[in-house]
């Protein structure tokens, strides 16, 4: 083992831990762990796979002449897999920040980038861009596959139909927001298993139970709750007893933004 230390290549002028540099660094970190690939593959497979499966089921029953429920939203049917795949991308969002804490890597990261808001912002930008791009592409592919299947029974739709383009693009937007929701919870709770549990509970487990809440007050809670509000963007036709697509999406965005801001504020105060 050599102890020779050649004096260093010149590094003038000293550059800085500026936001573009930190984003570059976070980009490398994001793609150099396996969990990123796993969760993204799961996102694509669940969205497209469940979408195709559900479309096939609907198509089969239509072929057999079973009466279709009134006002079936062919766009929403093809994108129904997002109900499950939102969890994969939320887990990715959690891991982007919680793995830093579970491994102790956060201390190394903050030694290189002492500004905690800057580190968090860089992570959010990398996660946001990737989840949006992958989400939009996945959503469009899933839509076309689903409509091809529904088309066999002549009950498919097209992007030209009212609300369809918004809903398909909305699928990507919703996947992006789910990733950010996981990221916000991971920032707040700093614990992988705990954050994933809370994310699954808030996005997936609790919403169906809210139907049990009585009265006007119960209706409001139901409509404004996380995925109930956010997923309206994925429906081509407005649903009864639900917020409008864009308003619902805004409500969901406020959910994750609020959690993220509290998490960021705490991160800035707490010891690493």
């Amino acid at each position: 083992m050599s102890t020779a230390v050649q004096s260093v290549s010149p590094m003038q002028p000293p550059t800085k831990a500026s936001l573009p540099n930190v984003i570059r660094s976070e980009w490398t970190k994001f793609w150099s762990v396996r969990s990123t690939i796993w969760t993204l593959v799961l996102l694509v497979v669940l969205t497209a796979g469940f979408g195709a499966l559900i479309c096939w089921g609907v198509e089969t029953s239509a072929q057999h002449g079973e009466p279709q429920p009134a006002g079936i939203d062919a766009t929403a049917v093809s994108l129904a897999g997002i109900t499950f795949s939102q969890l994969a991308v939320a887990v990715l969002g959690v891991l982007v920040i919680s793995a830093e804490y579970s491994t102790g890597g956060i201390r190394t990261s903050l030694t290189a980038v002492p500004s905690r808001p800057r580190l968090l912002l860089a992570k959010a930008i990398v996660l946001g861009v990737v989840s949006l791009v992958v989400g939009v592409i996945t959503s469009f592919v899933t839509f076309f596959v689903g409509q091809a299947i529904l088309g066999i029974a002549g009950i498919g739709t097209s992007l030209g139909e009212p609300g369809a383009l918004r809903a398909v693009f909305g699928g990507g937007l919703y996947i992006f927001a789910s990733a950010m929701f996981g990221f916000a919870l991971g920032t707040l709770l700093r614990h992988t298993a705990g954050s994933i549990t809370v994310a699954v509970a808030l996005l997936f487990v609790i919403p169906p139970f809210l139907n049990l809440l009585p009265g006007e007050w119960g209706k409001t809670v139901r409509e404004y709750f996380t995925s109930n509000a956010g997923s309206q963007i994925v429906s081509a036709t407005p649903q009864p007893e639900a917020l409008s697509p864009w308003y619902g999406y805004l409500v969901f965005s406020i959910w994750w933004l609020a959690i993220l801001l509290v998490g960021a504020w705490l991160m800035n105060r707490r010891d690493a």
Partner: protein
Amino acid sequence: MIEVSGLTKRFGNTLAVDDLTFNVREGVVTGFLGPNGAGKSTTMRLILGLDRPTAGTACVDGRSYGSLPGPLYEVGALLDAKDVHGGRTARNHLRALAQSNGIPVRRVDEVLEMTGIESVADKRIKGFSLGMSQRLGIAAALLGDPRVLMLDEPVNGLDPEGILWMRNFLRYLASQGRTVFVSSHLMSEMALTADHLVVIGRGRLMADVSTKEFIEQNTSRTVRVRSPQLSRLAEVLRRKGVSFEPNGEFLDVRDATCAQVGDLAAENQLPIHELFEQRASLEEAFMELTRESVQYHAEVGAGATSEVSS
């Protein structure tokens, strides 16, 4: 130069760091000594801005760590070598760190070579031995070619070859004019590595002296002698004005050599059955200094003093 002034950190009811003030000078290895739990790691975390101080300040070259525009250019730190994502390869870990401060990525290959881990650069870190992890930590600390290096227990858990490598490496880095601040709970290790010592116990400053001074102050030479005619030997010594202390069937003679005591006995025709030099070790001196401050005393029993309290 690292300047710590009135630094205090309280965790609940525990005062982990208690009004610490000291400076770490350039071009020397400064050892940061203290028993486990004395607050060494906390102090380093405070200097790096990872923990928020309850009171006081820590500056690197006159600025707080958080206000350094490119911290890796100024300070290379190694706290816990396992503070990395084990799923990443060593090269990707270093690449991400380099990019964060705008350091050219070719520098990654240079530090991998310097620390002798280029052969495992593309392996996942979780498979690394502690020695390799420590080298990776040093590689990360050297990325920005910083003037200040701060290392927490870098030889802890290393095998003898690794310890030797680390010792020589730290000396080499200091000889290049860098500030090297290195913590340890082993006095013997610091005696070999450090030029200057900052000793703390229970978060408080116990000593801030050069290693040479510390050794001179804290080691005394004693010659222990056993003789069947102990009282006559004592009489002879007393007449010569040599100070000594009876110790059971021995006499402990201060500031004398075996030759002097042996010759004296021979001149007086006194039989000697045993004669040997006893040197208080630095380890003992260090323990003496921090005895009151050791957070967890081992149950006091036989041999308890021959070990470093944990």
